[in-house]
């Protein structure tokens, strides 16, 4: 079974600063996807960024980027120029397989991010 570990239950960052959220995972699969989802107080699950395991290049979406270390099974999220709206619970998730959409997401326990003015 695949497990996803987020070792930081809570993190805090000042507005405009940079913060990195950690995630490690355990798998014997060679093909898989990794995701970061954001859950604000509204409860909605919002996709922040995704990474295909077969791609060596780290994914980037505006102020969000990842550091994907496949050998180390590490997938951290960096948020640059933090904004008050970034405050939320962040979940790291793993999904095996290339094209079978029947595979579900395995989630970490989440990191609660607080952004201070």
């Amino acid at each position, binding site marked *: 079974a695949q497990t996803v570990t987020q070792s930081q239950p809570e993190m805090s960052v000042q507005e405009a600063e940079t913060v990195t959220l950690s995630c490690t995972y355990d798998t014997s699969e060679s093909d898989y996807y990794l*995701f970061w989802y954001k859950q604000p107080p509204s409860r*909605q*699950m919002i*996709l922040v960024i*995704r990474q295909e395991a077969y791609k060596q290049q780290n994914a980037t979406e505006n102020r969000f980027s990842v550091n994907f270390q496949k050998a180390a099974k590490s997938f951290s999220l960096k948020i640059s120029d933090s904004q008050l709206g970034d405050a939320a619970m962040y*979940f790291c998730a793993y999904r095996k397989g290339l094209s*079978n*959409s029947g595979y*579900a997401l395995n989630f970490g326990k*989440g990191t609660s991010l607080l952004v201070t003015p």
Partner: protein
Amino acid sequence: DTAVSQTPKYLVTQMGNDKSIKCEQNLGHDTMYWYKQDSKKFLKIMFSYNNKELIINETVPNRFSPKSPDKAHLNLHINSLELGDSAVYFCASSQVGGTEAFFGQGTRLTVV
């Protein structure tokens, strides 16, 4: 238009009752899911359907029964509700060959 919509958003009910949560997606996706988020915010898969066929059925009490009348709908029926069923239930969908799942807004179920 909401891509994945669940009804109701909030549900408060007494122990022993039977309740249903409905989910519809207008994305044309082939696969739909039910996830449960507990009081500690942990998200865990319950069921997955692909083209109306059950694909994943995790260790969930058989009081929970998913029903998929067509590939755009996946409803969750819960019999004999217990206090421990209180949680947020999320519906999601994804496409064959796609990657990420799209989530509904969640249903907060409170059993009293």
